[in-house]
């Protein structure tokens, strides 16, 4: 399974049950990245897309339902129970400090993953966003 998650400088994902941030350029990148694969997400995550990509699959437990080759775009779902099923982690860094009360609960290094690539790009509402791809 391939997991996509966006975090702030402190590894935060949500604050007060709401995503810390979003950016249309990130959504476009995720669509491109997952082309040809299923892209699982919750209804809440889907709400940030104006038009859902063709490959989108909705589930209240996307990590449980995703197949080995599928992508999962998660926002606050615990990853720890699925760490052994995770072949790839796409970690998007906002390069900003936001308030947070739900944090990414795994460290890819601790899960035995290796940083394969890093890409910086400008977002629509963020000066610099970094996309890291970690692989087992």
């Amino acid at each position: 399974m391939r997991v996509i998650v966006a975090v702030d400088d402190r590894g935060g994902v949500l604050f007060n049950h709401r995503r810390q941030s979003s950016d249309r350029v990130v959504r476009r990148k995720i669509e491109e990245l997952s082309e040809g694969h299923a892209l699982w997400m919750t209804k809440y995550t889907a709400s940030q897309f104006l038009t859902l990509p063709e490959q989108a699959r909705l589930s209240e437990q996307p990590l449980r339902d995703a197949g080995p080759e599928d992508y999962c775009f998660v926002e606050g779902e615990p990853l720890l129970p699925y760490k052994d099923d995770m072949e790839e982690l796409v970690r998007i860094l906002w390069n900003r400090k936001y308030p947070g009360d739900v944090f990414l609960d795994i460290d890819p290094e601790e899960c035995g993953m290796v940083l394969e690539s890093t890409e910086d790009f400008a977002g629509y509402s963020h000066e610099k966003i970094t996309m890291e791809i970690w692989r087992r």
Partner: protein
Amino acid sequence: MSKRRKSGRRRQARTVRIVIFLVVMLFVGLALFPSDKRTASTSSTGSVTENTVTPTAAPADAQTAAQAAADQGVTDQAAAQAGGTSFQLSDVPAYAGAPYVAVNNNVPYFSDSDMQATSFEQYGDLDSLGRCTTAYACIGQDLMPTEKRGDISSVKPTGWHNVKYDGIDGKYLYNRCHLIGYQLTAENANEKNLITGTRYMNVEGMEPFENMTADYIKESGNHVLYRVTPVFEGNNLVASGVLMEGKSVEDNGAGVLFCVYCYNVQPNITIDYATGDSSESGDTGAADQGQTNQAAPTATQAPQPAADANQTAAYIGNANTHTFHRPDCSSVARMSDKNKVTFSSREEAINAGYDPCEICNP
């Protein structure tokens, strides 16, 4: 067709006249019954006291109430009420390592009628001691800066001292701290919008909320209703903290919703809030004399990175995942040194926002 249009115009003109009449009557009513009288009349119902009543949050009233409270000698409670809230400092837990704490379940004290998608910004008058009151705005892209921030050093907020300590990012203890951040409403040297705030409150407490609000507005094009009220105890010149409220308007808080108190503290520094004097913690100087409230910010050591943490600490936290472990947990062995933070107790880790590891169950 043309007759119908004319009669429509007449009806429209009549409606406009009625609306103007009602608005004029409203203003006359406000002039005859100022906000303090309306508060007293609400109190007379017996269901609420003067101390806990929530006044109208209409911007003009908020300012009037702020000035009235200021002229009477502001207490922390009254100062917070000036922001249109019934927030009380005594409800806030003592500082315990986290730069902010949610109040009122993270729901701002705005009323439904405040939720208008029209940009405005209002900065309350300084009180009789020269202290800032409430800054209130409905922030849209039209208020946001189009150029770099200007010089604000001409403003000397109450309690201001130019004082440096080693170990503080940038060394200076105090920042001229915007109530509504520059990135939101582009205010430069506005004395009604700048307080004496610690570096820690500015960067760790307030700035994350400003960032979240600014990025949401830029991304969505929506408005965010936003209010910051500094909370002073008695006649202190330095605020104990600030109450920050924010709610996105067009989606009724689905995008942004917060109500938090940010502590005006600096780890390892003791502050005398009456004057702004300060000393390193452990000093037996005159610090902290002005504090009477339980939220007295006796600075607590924030979690610090430590290379040899495994040997000495009771618990090791991972700054990336915000999980803490027993030192002998297998996760600690794989953790990068740069991500390690140490805690002397379980309570300290939890207060700093860390969750226990599900493997070693610390």
